[in-house]
């Protein structure tokens, strides 16, 4: 009877609202699609959004109300600090209330810790973690680049990006010199010009950053405004507000390590995916970047059907080592040891002359590299504690 409730918590207000808002819209769009494909066990999925203002404590309150209403799943994307708190909370809740457990579906919090030191049986991550993204980013650096500058947000995720990127630079590109490397407070800075000044002075050719939300957009905006001669290697320049911030001035300067870009589908000639993407563009007059979310629900659908119930323990077990062919037709796998998805990934370059432009800027993300799941695999140190076992 009824629906399968999935709690979703993300910043829907505050500086990062834009990201949460975009996520929510895309999530809704995808759920409608999944439900039109029959949902799971004949039930439809229903999304219950909770605003967490980017604060762990609020996320935990969301978790409380989710469990109060016996929701079997909670989903969260933005903020590894919040993810960490959620994992911790979910663990405690689940072993204190065996009769009312919940699974945490992580749609974007990508600090590697979460599936290593902190890995949990109740947590599944559906986005490549920062270590993997960092490797992709470093491989994307052209030969002539010799001096890079690192800016990251001062919290779990930013710190991990800082660590991983430096790690892979050391491994893969010893020729590159890190001329600057710093952490900035999360979502507080309104004008990045001072940083740009500093970066220019350092003589860096490329700026590597894991920033997201305003910390990403304002950073690049300041750079473009100051006319700094830099290339920007980012994780999240393609998220809401990014393209607008870059604008025409950023032609061929900005790269994004991304799970999907709107031009991927036409480039690989996948009509179905292109149609699906356009569907969203039509509906919301807004770019569609979260193909990963669709994969999540396809996993959920499969797992629930396989488990024959929404009982979290059963679903979690069913989810392990599950494989799904995502809507672009690539193979993906939910790795059993650490509950980290292994999927293909893309590098996009922001430039003119693409089929689908971003945020009406006339420029858009052209896929400059595609990395297949098998090449992404990275080892993990997770010691999973399974209930009962």
């Amino acid at each position, binding site marked *: 009877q009824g629906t399968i409730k999935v709690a979703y918590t993300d910043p*829907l207000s505050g500086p990062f609202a834009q990201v949460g*808002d975009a996520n*929510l819209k895309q999530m*809704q769009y995808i759920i409608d699609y999944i439900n039109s494909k029959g949902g799971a066990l004949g039930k439809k999925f229903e*999304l219950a*959004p909770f*605003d967490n203002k980017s*604060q*762990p*404590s609020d996320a*935990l*309150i969301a978790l*409380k*109300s989710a*469990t*109060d209403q016996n929701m079997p799943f909670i989903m969260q994307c933005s*903020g590894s*600090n919040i993810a*960490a*708190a959620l994992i*911790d*909370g979910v663990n*405690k809740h689940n072993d*204190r*209330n065996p*009769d*009312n457990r919940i699974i945490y579906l992580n749609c974007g919090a990508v600090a590697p810790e979460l599936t290593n030191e902190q890995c949990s049986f109740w947590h599944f991550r559906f986005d490549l973690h920062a270590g993997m993204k960092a490797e992709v980013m470093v491989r994307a650096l052209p030969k002539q680049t010799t001096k890079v500058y690192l800016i990251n947000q*001062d*919290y*779990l995720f930013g710190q991990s990006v800082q660590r991983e990127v430096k790690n892979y630079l050391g491994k893969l590109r010893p020729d590159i010199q890190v001329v600057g490397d710093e952490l900035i*407070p*999360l979502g507080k800075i309104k004008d990045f010009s001072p940083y740009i000044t500093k970066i220019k002075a350092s003589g860096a050719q490329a700026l590597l950053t894991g920033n997201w939300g305003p910390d990403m957009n304002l950073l690049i905006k300041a750079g473009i405004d100051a006319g700094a001669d830099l290339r920007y290697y980012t994780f999240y320049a393609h998220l809401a507000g990014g393209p607008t911030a870059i604008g025409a001035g950023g032609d061929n300067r900005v790269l994004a390590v991304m799970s999907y870009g709107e031009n991927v589908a036409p480039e690989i000639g996948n009509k179905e995916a292109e149609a699906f993407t356009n569907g969203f563009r039509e509906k919301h007059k807004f770019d569609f970047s979260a193909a990963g979310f669709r994969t999540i629900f396809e996993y959920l659908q499969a797992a629930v059907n396989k488990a024959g119930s929404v009982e979290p323990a059963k679903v979690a077990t069913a989810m392990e080592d599950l494989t799904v062919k995502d809507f672009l037709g690539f193979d993906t796998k939910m790795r059993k040891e650490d509950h980290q998805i292994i999927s293909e990934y893309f590098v996009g370059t922001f430039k003119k002359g693409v089929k689908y432009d971003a945020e009406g800027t006339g420029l858009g993300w052209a896929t400059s590299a595609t990395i297949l799941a098998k090449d992404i695999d990275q080892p993990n140190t997770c010691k999973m504690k399974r209930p009962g076992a």
Partner: protein
Amino acid sequence: MNMLRRHWPWLLAFVVLLAIPFLFYDWSKGRHSGFVLTLMSEIGVMAIFALSYNMLMGQSGLLSFGHAVLLGMGAYCAAHVVLLVKAGAFWLPTELVPLAGGLGGLFFGYVLGWLVTKQRATAFAMITMGLGELVSAAALMFMGFFGGEGGIPIDRVMDTSVLGVRYSSPWQVYCLVLVWAFIAAALMRLQTQTPLGSMANATRDNFERAQFVGYDPRMVRLYQFTLAGFFAGIAGGLYVLIYEIVTFDTVSAAKSANALLAVYIGGAGGFFGPILGTVVVVLLQSGVSLLSNAWLLYVGVLFIVMVMYAPGGLIGLIFMHAPIWRAGRLRELALPYARAFPPALLVLLGFVLLVELASFTTIGAAQGKTFTIAGNTIDTMAPMPWVIALGALMLGGLWLRREARSFRERWDALMEGAKADSIKRQIDAGIAIVKTQEAVS
């Protein structure tokens, strides 16, 4: 026995508070409503916090914008203590974790107090604000003690209880909160009747004069501030046990503001005012915020209305009836109230509907929520609901104006009846309670 006769209200209150959660008990699943318990626990904690804030604002006329620092510091200390205990560094019963928080608060209360109590009036308000911002910024910066953006998560199940309770369930925690809340409240009430408490009032009323009766007002304030820190710290300790995580928002200005709001809405100075205020504020924040996106707006409106029409706070409003009550003619107000009620309700409904319509068309939509009353969804774009809302608002407004006039006449008449001097005392008391301007100007 006579003890019992004197303090029965407290006991009664305790029992009632213990009982309330059972009204929401879910018998089918055989478990308490986690939400209600958390809400009630929150009220307990914030009540302590508000009372400790009142030790500054009400008792000493010190307007602080950084009181949450003491709460938060207490919380962080308690959290670290819990971690240490779990790591086996030393043994401490779970029941005493709040005390650990209290000592933390005491310490920081003394240190910070030493800095700020030199200042008075606006300077004090500003320096406490500065400290508040400073600490909350630092909390994001120093991983070691504050755990940065992630905060410090703990597991309250320490298995060190002297009562053999695990505190795995919110209910057990709620009971602990309740006990501590009563202890703290009682202590703070007594403190007002000690020499220090009395001199705190004196320094509030006339800073300089206090010197010429042999007291160093600075010291009076410092000790008062330190004690306030202690109780805020206890609140912090309990906070940790409830949420099992401390993040920078426990030290944030928003939290400090909460205390101020609670105290003022309830009525500063007195003892029950702050508690009353806390209940209102928390219900608005945690309760209404779930139902409505616009809850902040309601808080704002409530505030402005209170400040403009009931400077004595809710307690003040209640006190205004005292003379009539003593004259034993409260009954005669029943009818006027009854007559004023429907229009008031109409206005309220109209206003709420209007606000909700507005908020759902924008915020609600953005958060993927739809406006539903009793199950059926309202189309916020259709003109009809708006018309109804506006209509209710205006109609109610006019009607209320009429009723209010007759109400006032009745009221004045009754006041006349009640003994004149007692009125004066009560109302002046009501106003005096609020006139903390010495604190700021």
